[in-house]
Structures are given as C-alpha cells and as structure tokens.
C-alpha cells in the first residue's frame, strides 16, 4: 500500500495531531517520513512550534528526532540551524519570527537529523506551506507543538493524521472508544450552504445566537457555561438553529427541554469546541441532539502507539484490529511495527 502517495493526491497539507501528550505524534511523523522515502515523495516538514527536540520540554520524556532525506524542504529557526546533523542548504530567510530566531526554509542536501520549528501565527503558517509547495514539496506535513487535539483547528491544513495510543488509558477498550469518539466528532456534518450558513458566517459572531423564523437573534451570552436554562427559556417553536461560538459543554444541552432539543440544530464553529465525553454524548444523541459545524475536520489516517511512557503497553495487533473495527473507513497504522 502506498499510503503517502494516496494522501498526497488528495491533500497538500496534513497536520499530525495527537490525542494527548505522548500519543506518539513524533513517532508517527518519523514513520511517515520513512514511508515518503520509500515511495519517492518529496516532503515539506514544518511544525506549529518548536518540535523535534531530543527531550520534550513539557514532560521530559524522550522524543524521537526527525530524520530527513535529501530534497526534503524543512523550516528551521536560525538558532537551531547549527545544531542540525543533516546538511541543509538555506533557500530562503522568511520574515516569520519564533522564539529561536527567524524561520528559514532549507533544502536537505545531506540526509540526517533536524530539529524542526515553524511560525506560530496561523496566517504565516499557511503562507509558508504555500512556499514549501512552490519549492517542490509534493506534500507538507505539519507537526503541532503541543500534543492537543484542540489545535487541530481547521484552516491550517487540508486534513489531519490523528495519533493515538496507550497513553490515553490502561484499558485498551477505552483507548479505542475515546479515539472513535474524537474521530466521529471531527467528522460531524458541515452546515449546508444556504441562508442559515450565510447568516452565521457573514460576520464573526461572538455571542450565542439563534436563528428564529429565518432571522438572526443574538443573545447576551458568550460562553455556554451555565447557559442551559437561559437558553431553554429563549427557545420557542420558531427557533431552528442555535449557534454556540465558544466551548460546547454538557451543561448547555442538559437543561434544554427534550421536546425542544429534537427540533433544533446546534451549530458550532468547528468540532474542537466540543467538550463532552463519550457516554454523555451518546445519551444526548439518543435524546435527539443535532449538531452541525461550520468547518469539520478531515481525518486522513490514524496512527496508534501501543506503548505508553507510563510503562505499560498493549498487544500491537490487537490494538490495530480493535481500532480498525471501530473506525472501519480510515486507515489505521501501527507506527511501532
């Protein structure tokens, strides 16, 4: 199977996002880089912050370094250039700053290990990925600095690869369940083009809003925390959509009359705004909760790491099998085998 070949046909920029710290995001990146070497695909490698350092700055656990093949385009900050063990030809000095100096675009001349970092500002990131593609990369892989699914926010990439693993729980069934839940959230349907979408996207709305009788009604609340009862009192027969711009928590849904709940559709900016656990989520869905998002997230592949730095591990094959059964239509890859 030619995973990257397939991916590079569909997408130009893929973010690698971890379900948690130490879910094996960098291991996954290294795996994909090796795949690219075998498949003859030229990669662009960047990160949303400093990455590839020997030890993780936050938790102190080992982090594999990034080994890059010749011709790869990589973003390296000025201060880390001298520390690279690969031969790097400096191709461009960008105007993007980082805590480790300006970001430079380099072409790998002699393969070896590199510490990667990219711009922090989203817009600069998008620009830089474009530049990498211009310089000859077939596909740009973006590594996030903090392994948090919340930074999977759409806009910076066309799709994500979700890294998950034993670190999530000692129970394998729990790891699979949580991962499947996240993937299902990411794949929530987009709000269709039409009047409602136009109403909600025309301006950047920062308050909870309703669409009532085809008109936008802005409420005097910005977060959903404790807003359930308040919201319930505002929903009548004519309300069709409820737009929640901030965090979407169970307290918003819990206080809404089930009869009303079935007749409305919640609209969120993107799936990363949902903070509701699997169990609760399934209950709400049974009660008739409808959710759509303005921008959902494409999950291109899932990588699993059966080992946890906490000192336990699952059987590799079993984990892959269970995961693939739970999420049948997305390729699941074991990065350690």
């Amino acid at each position: 199977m030619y995973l990257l070949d397939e991916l590079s046909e569909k997408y130009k920029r893929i973010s690698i996002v971890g379900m948690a710290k130490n879910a094996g995001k960098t291991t996954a990146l290294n795996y994909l880089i090796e795949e690219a070497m075998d498949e003859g695909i030229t990669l662009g490698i960047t990160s949303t912050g400093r990455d590839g350092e020997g030890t993780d700055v936050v938790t102190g656990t080992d982090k594999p370094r990034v080994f890059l093949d010749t011709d790869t385009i990589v973003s390296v900050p000025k201060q880390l250039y001298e520390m690279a063990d690969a031969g790097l030809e400096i191709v461009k000095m960008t105007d993007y700053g980082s805590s480790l100096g300006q970001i430079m675009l380099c072409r790998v001349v002699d393969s070896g290990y590199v510490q990667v970092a990219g711009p922090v500002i989203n817009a600069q990131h998008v620009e830089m990925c474009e530049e990498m593609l211009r310089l000859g990369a077939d596909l740009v892989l973006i590594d996030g600095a903090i392994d948090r699914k919340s930074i999977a926010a759409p806009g910076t990439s066309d799709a994500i690869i979700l890294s998950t693993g034993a670190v999530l729980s000692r129970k394998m069934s729990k790891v699979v369940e949580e991962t499947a839940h996240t993937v299902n959230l990411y794949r929530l349907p987009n709000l269709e083009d039409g009047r409602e979408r136009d109403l909600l996207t025309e301006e950047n709305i920062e308050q909870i809003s309703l669409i009532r009788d085809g008109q936008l009604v802005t409420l005097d609340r910005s977060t959903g925390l404790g807003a359930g009862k308040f919201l319930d009192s505002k929903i009548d027969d004519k309300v069709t959509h409820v737009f929640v711009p901030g965090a979407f928590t169970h307290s918003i849904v819990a206080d809404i009359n089930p009869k009303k709940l079935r007749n409305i559709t919640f609209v969120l900016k993107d799936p990363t705004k949902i903070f509701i656990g699997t169990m609760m989520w399934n209950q709400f869905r049974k009660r008739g909760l409808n959710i759509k998002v303005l921008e959902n997230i494409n999950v291109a592949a899932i990588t699993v790491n059966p080992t946890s730095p906490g000192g336990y591990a699952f059987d590799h094959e079993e984990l892959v099998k269970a995961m693939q059964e739970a999420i049948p239509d997305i390729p699941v890859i074991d990065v350690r085998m």
Partner: protein
Amino acid sequence: MSTAVKRLANVKTRRETGLDYVISAMNLLTPFGAKQIKEQKPFFPGQEGALEAELDRVGQMVETAEQNHKEIGILQETFMMTKDNTFSIERSGSSVLSVVEIFELKNLLLLMDKIRSLSTRISLPEEFVPEDITELLDVLDPGGDRLNTFYIYDSFSEKLAQLRREKKNMEREIRKGQKALRSEIREKHGLSLTPKFDITISKSDSATIKMIEEISELAKSDEDYMSVTFTLVPDAEVQAHMKELDEITADIEEEELNVRGRLSKEIHKHSKRLLDNCEKIGRLDIILAKALYAKAHNCTKPEIVKEHVLEFEDGRHLQVEEIIKKKGGEYCPVSISLKDGVTCITGANMGGKTISLKLTGMVAILAQYGYFVPCKSARVGLSNFMQILIGDSQSIERGLSSFGSEMEELKEIIDNSKDRSLLLIDEIASGTNPVEGLALTKSIVDYLKGKTYISLITTHFETVTADKDVVNMQVTGLANVDFEKLNREIRYANRRERINIIQKYMDYRLTRVDDAAEIPKDALNIAKMLGISSSIIDKAKEYIV
C-alpha cells in the same frame, strides 16, 4: 571647557515645527537609511556651500526619479529586502562566521550588486553607487549561479567533496553489510527484520523469544509489558565501517569549519568596502526618500543666502495641509518676509496665526536640514539657533501652570540665543493679567529688538505693534467678508459645520501694516457665529465702550 555638540533646535522645536512629522512621513526602506536619518545634522552658517550641494543632490534625484520610473520602483523593492548585517561584517575579523551569517551576507552582496547595476543604469552620481563586490561574491558563490541560497557546497573544498563521497560510500557499505546479515537471518531462522534492522515479538510468543535469544546476531534492545524488540548486532566488519564513518563525519565537520574560517577571512578582507557600501546605500535611500517626498508634496528647493533672512511665498504647513486635504478643503498658502528684528503677527481669532508661526519654523528648519520646502519659492539665511515658544499639553502633564512653563522656556531662549537666531513666540504672557502681560510682552520685544535675531511673535496686545521698530503683519481674517452672506449660511449649520464655514471664509494671508492701524476685533463676531447667545455678545459690546 569642552566644546559641546552644537545644537540647532531642541526636541520640542523639532516636533512643533513639523520636522519630526516630515521625517516620519518619509518612506525609508533600508535599515542603513533608517539609522542614518536619526543621526542627521543640520547645516550651520558658514556651511552654505555644503547645504547647496545637498539640496542639488535632492533636486537631481527628483529629476532622475521622474525619468526612470520603472528602475526606481525596482530599486525601492531591492531596498526593502536589505537587512542590517553589519554586525557579522565587523565580527568576521575576529571570529568564524556561522553558515546563517554567511548566507545573509551573500544575500546582502547580491542586493548590493543589484543596486550597483541599477544605479549605474540610471547614471546616479558616483557617491551613491555601491562599489563592485563581484570578487567577494565569486568567493561565496563559486558555482556562479548567483542564487540567494547557501550551503557549504562541495565546490568550496576538494577535500570536503572527497570526504563527503567517502561518507556516502561508507554508509552504503554499512547498509549493505546489515542487509546481508538480515537476509542470512531470514534464511537461517525464518525471521524477517524491519528496514531498521529490528524485530518486535509479542511476549505471548515465548517460543520465538526463546529461539531469538539463542541467536548471537540479535540483541534485546527494548522491552515493555507486552513485547520485546531485538536489534541486529553489527558484525566486526560493519562495526569497523561504523567507526570509520564516525571519523569521516568528524573530519567533515572540521573541514566545514575550515571553509567557514576561510570565507570569514575573505569577508573580512573586503569589510571596509562592504561597510562603505552599506553607508552609501543608506545615503541613497535618504536622498531618494527626500526627493520622492518633495515631489509628492510639491516642495521646492529653497534659495540659500548669506544674510540672515527668511522669506517665502505661498508656504503650506504640511501637517495641517494633510488634515485639510483629508476633509476635502483647500489650503490657503501664506507668504512672509522676515529679517533681524521683531515682527508681530496680529489678527483675528481662528486666523491661523499659530499655524503661520509654525510654518515659518517648518520652512527654516527643513531648509537647514537639507530638505525641499513646501513653498512656491523661499530665501533662507541659516541660523545658529532656533526655538519655538508655544503652549503644549506636556507642561500640564509636568504639573506646571501654562505661565510657569512659558517663563521657563523664555529663560531657556534668552540664555541660549546667539548671533543669527530664529525665535518663534506664540502669544506670550496671555495667561496672566493683561496689565502685567502687556508690560512683559513689551519689555521682551524691547529686549529682542536690538539683537541679531529674527523674532516672530503672535500677539493680541495691539500697543505692542505701535512701536515703529516692530514690523506688524496682520491676518486678513474676515475683513473682506460679506457678513450677510456668511450669517445666512451659518444660521442653519450645526456646530461642526459652523467651524468649517468660518474656516472657509477666513483669509489666512498676512499683510504688512505700516501705519499703526487698529487691530481688527473679530473675537465677538466669531463668538457670535459659534452660537454664543446675543445677550452675552451685546453686553460685551457695551463693556468695550
């Protein structure tokens, strides 16, 4: 006593006359120009020749810019790409530069080369053309590609190229050896290792683990609760290769350092020329910015004369003009002619007296710093000292009353004035009782009259101008206005419109009044137009009588 650096004008004067405004509105594009402009010095009496030369440069640049529109555009783009790498240039003598530094310098050299060829093409004067740096560029770009990329390429050192080839071969040998071992293990034991030459076995498969533990070519490298990973142990030959590879890598690093050292020395050899070029680019940047600003704002070259005079025709205060233009209005230019002695500006409220005072300062200070001036024509004799005395919000912030800070500044002016000074004084002593205020103003005028200073004073005290040694310039104001028409227009206007209408009718021009004519009294008129109730106005009129 040490000779202090001669200062023409203090910070406040530079700000209030609008010099700072013009400088910040100029579009400087290089770090060198931005640095130089902060250090720019005015020209003093005796340096008229040098000032003329500077103004000629600006004038020439205006022409060049008009004739070479496209090239100037490219030049500006190139300017924008320059970065200040002078620190690396200075460092090259004592240290080995990093690859990033050499990359940045190579970039700078390419830009210098481009600026050089552009400025030669549009025949700029020699003093602005960066010197040829091809020799150094050839050193940093041995392939002659002239691309702005950099790496310690093989072409820098035959030895380096040789070492890198050896490294590649050695890596291939090692991989070949490992692969041979891997296929041996596959044949002998039926185990297939990953491309990384390891194999992970589940702990439940204890038979296989036991079997592998017997194989001497495989060693346990990692273990967790569920699985064990074994890695291929390199044989003696491969191990020898690995050791060699380490040595070659060390040699490569050393040779790369040698190359960087050599390049740093070469850069150092040319450092004077490089720094000179940065200087030249900075000067070119400034002259171009001055020229383009003059062109865009209709400024002309002032005539610099030996005698201490200040005359201009149709002057416009640039900062005020911009505001008026934004509002869609038209600026009413002002002309004035000053020489040593005291000149007073009198006239209506809202008549632009203060702006005319500031404009006079602007023309004088811009000329003296080598800028074109916003007038139809101007004759300027250089001053040794310039100061403006004007109320500003800063004295209030400092907790001084307006009179207190005025007196502080007056003392500074009187202490620092010297031969050929330009003093601009805005309504002095208007913040105290009119009896003492008038007396003080008169005595200041008496003091300044006899000096070789050009003193320009705005005032409402009419007896000051009665002195036959004082020149009186009067704002035309509303003198020639058809009040009936004005009143009709103002009757239905709201507050802001009223101000605009008054400004529209106001004639800001100055006229010299030789006989001690009465100062026009427009204050009550204007107060009335601005909506003060007629009972107050009428009462005030009674008091005047």
